[in-house]
């Protein structure tokens, strides 16, 4: 895709498992295992998937917060060499991140003013007075009163704190904001406020979001395109409407079937039986989903299906669909 702002190819992150006093490596966690996707300007791409499937790691790897084992990233046509080194620093100004936990992502010992100003200080943007002004601006932009600037994070509610995090991410006028589950720690009423704020910001500032979530409702609401991850792989990636209308990968299907309805008259009949859920440490051979898949065959055990395009433009990694 040529109009892509960000293009990710073969992104891979492996963590060594170290043990013992000498910290010898005894295994690898294949947290992210070669994923490709792209993100357009003003677009929201969601990453959904279950806990531990590598969503956050993907986000952190993009920010260079964890070292990518392999893969390339092209940003605005320019290749960020191997996701390492100094090119990353400049890249970071243009890509920012908002974390899930609004409590732990703000330093409890810093005033809100200092938290929001930190990126300006780090990148030496403007004079002291300009930074001051910018902080006030940003606070207003995310719906905080600038007179609260001298308060500490614990004096704010969860939603307000998430706003502080967003203000900080906005400070450097990034083109992409990675939102790592920004609302999953919030009550629905507050969650709605933040989702609205993110939508407003995109409309007004034209940022793109890489939106990480495990909540299909939220994903459906906010994204243009959706990538479904399972154990470090993207198993399906499609436009939102297409995906929700017709989930193709069996895992996508399972996710949707599991989401509670919001209609007591249309209850699901959930199965009480339990799956043995594999982890990134002990990945099954072949298609990682095969132990839980009702379509699984010998082929699935043997070969990992590639992400291949389907008629309607979506990409699916499944031998059978």
């Amino acid at each position, binding site marked *: 895709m040529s109009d892509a702002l960000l293009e990710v190819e073969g992104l891979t992150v492996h963590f060594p498992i170290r043990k013992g006093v000498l*910290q010898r490596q005894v295994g690898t966690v294949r947290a992210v295992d070669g994923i490709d996707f792209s993100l357009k300007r003003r677009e929201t791409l969601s990453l959904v998937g279950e*806990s531990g499937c590598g969503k956050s790691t993907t986000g*952190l790897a993009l*920010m260079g*917060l964890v070292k990518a084992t392999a893969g390339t990233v092209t940003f605005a046509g320019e290749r960020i060499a191997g996701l390492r080194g100094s090119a990353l*620093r400049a890249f*970071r*100004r243009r890509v*920012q*991140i908002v*974390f*899930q*936990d*609004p*409590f*732990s*992502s*703000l*330093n*409890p*010992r*810093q005033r809100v003013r200092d938290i929001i100003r*930190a*990126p300006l200080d*780090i*990148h030496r943007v403007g004079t002291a007075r300009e930074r001051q002004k910018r902080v006030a601006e940003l606070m207003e932009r995310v719906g905080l009163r600038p007179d609260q600037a001298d308060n500490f*994070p*614990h004096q*704010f*509610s*969860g*939603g307000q*704190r998430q706003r502080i*995090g967003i203000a*900080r991410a906005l400070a*450097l006028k990034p083109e992409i904001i990675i939102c790592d589950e920004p609302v*999953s*720690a*919030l*009550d629905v009423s*507050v969650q709605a406020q933040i989702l609205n704020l993110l939508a407003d910001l995109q409309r007004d500032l034209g940022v793109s979001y890489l939106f990480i979530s495990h909540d299909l409702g939220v994903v459906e609401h906010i994204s243009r395109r959706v990538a479904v991850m399972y154990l470090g792989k993207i198993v399906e990636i499609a436009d939102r409407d297409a995906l929700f209308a017709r989930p193709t990968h069996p895992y996508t299907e399972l996710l949707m079937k599991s989401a509670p309805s919001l209609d007591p008259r249309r209850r699901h009949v959930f199965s009480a039986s339990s799956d043995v859920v594999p982890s990134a440490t002990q990945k099954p051979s072949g298609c990682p989903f095969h132990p839980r898949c009702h379509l699984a065959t010998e082929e699935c055990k043997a070969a990992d299906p590639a992400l291949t395009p389907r008629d309607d433009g979506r990409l699916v990694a499944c031998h059978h669909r």
Partner: protein
Amino acid sequence: MRMPKPLRNPSFVIGAAITLFIVGCAVLAPHVAPYGVEQMDMRNRFAGPSLEHLLGTDNFGRDLWSRMVFGARISLMIALISVGGAALIGTVVGLVSGYFGGWVDLVLGRITDIFLGFPAIILALAIVAVLGPGIVNVSLALIVVFWTEYARVVRGATLVLREQNYVQAARALGAGPLRIIFREILPNALGPIIVLASLGLGTAIIAESALSFLGFGLPPPAPTWGWTLSYGTRFMRDEPWLAIVSGAAIMITVLGFNLLGDGLRDLLDPRQLSRGRGERRKA
């Protein structure tokens, strides 16, 4: 109105009161001491407490109260220097070791182990023997003994803190290690350091007096509590007063610092920071 939180903590209040009293005496020593520290009166040795000599006199007939007050200066000075130095070194080592991890941590960890493995007293004795006695030298010896504790605690705290999202956030913003360590991590590790330091002040005072007791402390005529106690124990059978007063001075001061430290521990406990409203935890 309710009392401010620290004032409702008895440990803190008593500890702070004792500490303030001792520090006050030390600072104002020339004003609160009615006699000179070295003013001997051999005809009036081992006098009991009286209006003339609040705490009585010592083996040279010197006013014990005056000596205790001036002794407080020395004890506090040594305690402050040694705890300050140990905290500084230990904190830096702990931060660096915890933040960078890997081989840096491995090497610093081994070095810490080396000092940890030494029986404290051997190390201190040897160092004082090398450097000779003196406020700074005794303090240095105690620094060498005590820094490991800070290194350990700070390293532990750093290991936890560096995984905190706000540290990740700072890195995401492009902050360098120095900024992260000193702006993001250190302020949050300060709680345990302060607690440790105030407990450490007590330990340092005891350690200093033990060195004096073994003859490795500040030599007389410095009015150190340790020497007074060391003399005191010699006269203990017949003139127990000297040992009791000097021992009690040490104990009360240490008690003050310990209570203060405990109080601070309660007050600075991060679990006491209320979690905010309107959020939900997910595993």
